[in-house]
């Protein structure tokens, strides 16, 4: 079966986010009342697995092995069956 995973990798809270900071400043210059911007990365992954549990286990492994660096990144994901 095919599953769609949506993985979001973001910087851990407390870690400085120079990209977010620069974006915030730019938005403020455009006169938006912005307090904070944090940048994260989203992956949409279509994968094959025999069950939702297996798909989740695979995505978890992908995050740990490649998509996130545990030193600075947090990750969350959602897996849905592809219809």
């Amino acid at each position: 079966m095919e599953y769609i995973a949506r993985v979001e990798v973001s910087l851990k809270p407390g870690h400085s986010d120079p990209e977010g900071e620069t974006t915030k400043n730019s938005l403020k210059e455009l006169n938006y009342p912005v307090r904070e911007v944090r940048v994260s990365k989203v992956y949409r992954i279509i994968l094959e697995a025999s069950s939702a549990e297996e798909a989740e286990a695979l995505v978890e492994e992908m995050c740990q092995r490649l998509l996130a660096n545990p030193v600075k990144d947090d990750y969350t994901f959602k897996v849905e069956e592809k219809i």
Partner: protein
Amino acid sequence: MEKGEIRVCILRVGGTNCDAETKRAFTELGVEAEVYHINQIAKRGILQESEALVIPGGFSYGDYVRAGAILAKGLLTKLGDDLERFIEEGKPVLGICNGFQVLVEAGLLPGFDGVGSRPEAALTTNIPVGYRCRWVYLKHENRGNCIFTSKVPRDVTLRIPVAHAEGRFIFPEGKEQEYLERLYENDQLVFRYCDEDGRYAEGRYPTNPNGSFHDIAGICNPEGTVFGLMPHPERAYYGWQLPDWTRRGSPPKYGDGRLIFESMIDYLTRKF
């Protein structure tokens, strides 16, 4: 081992772009250096026939996911056992700029717990954000463990350029002091950013060009045989590569970067 017998393997993948000048630096020192694609290295067992491995600068695989991340996993999957043996035999591995990012992502640096561990540090987005290409000063901190700086006296200041957007060295939050102490205990700290007179940058831009923790520019593993640094020694190899020699009349013969390659070759001739 004679100089002429030493074979240096320079690893290339899509996006590597400092392989030619790195090869030239080694060739100039009288050793045999060749550029190989990672798949060639894996298929033809090139590591077993080489005495040193260099991961040069560039933007491996477009720096997608994170700088160096994809090549790091490729290195472990495609060359894993060979690379582990290579490092255990004490053969030197040098990572320059993107190569440093690869070694950190692969968990080979700082490598507190040996090969195959998870990343214990990261090289992340510069503060201030942006690509920085400039000459920096580096203070040599190593007390003799790092085989790549044996020809550099302690506390000497070198001038070598950086060129990167993700060079801010960090440890996991809350572990900074503990890991820094380990770096000092194991004599793994090699270069820190400083000013022309050797005073530490203390985080100040542009002396510290990327906001690196503790002004860290380069570290080695506990054994001193795996070394990564953000600055490009191959771009400070010849005197004519220096930015200001025309103002001084004529270029010196060599730049400071040459010392790193010389130290590495010196180690190889003595050890093997």
